[in-house]
């Protein structure tokens, strides 16, 4: 049934390494393997959540998908087109279908531009007709729950939640098919977070949007996502439906991550798997399974042989020898 639907976005074997240069000749001494061979599909109209701790590569993955960061390897098929084969001109034209919402609503809006100029800028860049631009901006502002009268004001006059709405209006301007939302609610207060999450859900319904939703906040990811991919040190360790990942995680890292989430209920029984130690560096990740240094159930094999992401009978994918 769902398998028949062609994915809107199909990422395979995506890699993004950042060189570390040292010495007078700036020779490349090592690489930060930020994203190291990940593959996933996103179907039209669904929300794919990418979750993981800081440094796991989720943000890099989101940007590499849009070629905001040039990937080092892999293919990205978007709406039937191989994005990596496009030249700069063509890529720019395709970008109108793929937009991004950033985490920090303070840093992502130019403080010297009016709201009219910020939300209208995509029209300028993509050269769409200018006659009714104010009307278009006004409609967009209304769509995200802002009063069109704010058009002549500047970002500093708005609260974090309002700024995030402005960023969303800008992302919507060209009626994209895919929106990469990179921690869009992490900088917001609890009561404002819920407003923005609801807005994103409403817009998805209204415009048939597909989201790649990146966040470290697991309850947020669970609420908004159809499917979830869990990243650890540049790799996807488990991919499945929201319920599979959050109600019955199979990978020991997913299990530990979920058990660490604080539950807003003092009566909740806590069976916490406390991971010892810190996340190793992605410059020189552990051999074999990258999680073996912190894994409570690791065996000899895990230190030597890297577990591939393989399908389980229930349809999810897990990268663990012991599952």
């Amino acid at each position, binding site marked *: 049934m769902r398998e028949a639907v062609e994915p809107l976005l199909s990422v395979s074997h995506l890699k993004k390494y950042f060189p570390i240069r040292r010495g007078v000749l700036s020779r490349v001494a090592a690489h930060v393997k930020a994203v190291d061979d990940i593959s996933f599909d996103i179907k039209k109209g669904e929300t794919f959540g990418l979750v993981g701790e800081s440094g796991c590569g989720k943000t890099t993955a989101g940007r590499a998908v849009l070629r905001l960061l040039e990937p080092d390897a892999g293919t990205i098929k978007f709406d039937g087109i191989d994005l990596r084969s496009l030249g700069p001109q063509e890529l720019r034209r395709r970008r109108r279908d793929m937009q991004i919402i950033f985490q920090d609503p303070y840093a992502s809006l130019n403080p010297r531009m009016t709201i009219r100029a910020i939300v209208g800028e995509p029209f300028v860049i993509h050269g769409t007709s200018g006659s009714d631009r104010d009307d278009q901006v006004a409609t967009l502002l209304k769509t995200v729950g802002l009063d069109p009268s704010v058009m002549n004001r500047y970002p500093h006059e708005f609260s974090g939640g309002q700024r995030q709405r402005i960023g969303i209006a800008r992302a919507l301007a060209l009626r994209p098919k895919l929106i990469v939302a990179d921690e869009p609610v992490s900088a917001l207060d609890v009561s404002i977070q819920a407003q923005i999450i609801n807005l994103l859900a409403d817009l998805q319904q209204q415009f048939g949007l597909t989201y790649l939703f990146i966040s470290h906040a697991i309850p947020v990811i669970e*609420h908004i996502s159809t499917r979830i991919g869990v990243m650890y040190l540049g790799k996807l360790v488990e991919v499945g439906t929201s319920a599979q990942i959050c109600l019955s995680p199979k990978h020991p890292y997913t299990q530990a991550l979920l058990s660490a989430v604080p539950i807003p209920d003092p009566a909740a029984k806590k069976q916490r798997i406390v991971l010892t130690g810190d996340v190793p560096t992605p410059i020189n990740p552990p051999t074999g399974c990258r999680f073996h240094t912190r894994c409570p159930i690791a065996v000899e094999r895990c230190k030597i042989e890297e577990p591939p992401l393989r399908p389980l009978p229930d349809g999810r994918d897990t990268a663990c020898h012991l599952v």
Partner: protein
Amino acid sequence: MTNVLEVRDLKTYFFTDEGVVKAVDGVSFAVERGKTLGLVGESGCGKSVTAMSISRLVSPPGRVVGGEVLLNGRNLVPLSDAEMRRVRGSQIAMIFQEPMTALNPVLEVGFQIAEAVLAHEKISKREAWLRAVDAMRAVSIPDAEKRAKDYPHQLSGGMRQRIMIAMALVCNPMLVIADEPTTALDVTIQAQILELLDSLRQKYNLSLILISHDLGVIAEVAETVAVMYAGKIVEIGPAMDVFHNPRHPYTQGLLQSIPRLGSSLQKKDRLDVIEGMVPNLLHLPDGCSFAARCHKKTVECTRSEIILEAISEQHEVRCIHA
């Protein structure tokens, strides 16, 4: 039970060019020996300023303009700055959100902890260093002797926060105020730090004030919870009561608006939200500050000041509809 700390009608105002901001406006609570009070609220609600006022770290244009801060029965508010310096660090210790900015980047971490001891006790540098290493062991830093010679940048975020905790504990304070101690940390590291704080509290019979915007973090460690909104406590009581039987519409709204783990069981498309946003503290409305966002609002709400009233023995709510 003895109260280590009693805060009575604390008021801290900021005298800005635009007007007076009543950041903390009549806050009262008590912390028992060996217990944890959780102070929860959104940005600008006054939870951090409350903490800073207790340890007198508020700087101009802010000023504590009223109230009492009783530490073991002794009022700290009239103390001179010099007297207060002796209290801070030795009897009250603070842990901040960002361990990287709270540590000096060019000094060894062990030295920074030792400095805290030397500021309060007449002991040799050698002894102070040993105390620092002991404190680092107490917060489960492996290889403490070696790590003490590290600089902050050589340590991970979680390790740095352990250093901050070691520094807070090294003079055996009776009260520790932790202001968003895990907000900058990853969730697996957050779990480690919360567990550590809780075990240290039990081991040393510490009183702890934990400030957080995260209701989950508060629920994990606090016995008593105070919810702040626009400079005032709107609800305070035992954690069980506040979380299971919230009576203030703001507390209710907050608890309903957070996405919860396990939500895919009963997939809701929308979260319940609190409409609108926090009022400007410069122009607070008469009566209840939350009224403009409240679904229970009536004309009585904005007529006059709403007081914090007990609805059961320990549970108090600032709402006439509670």
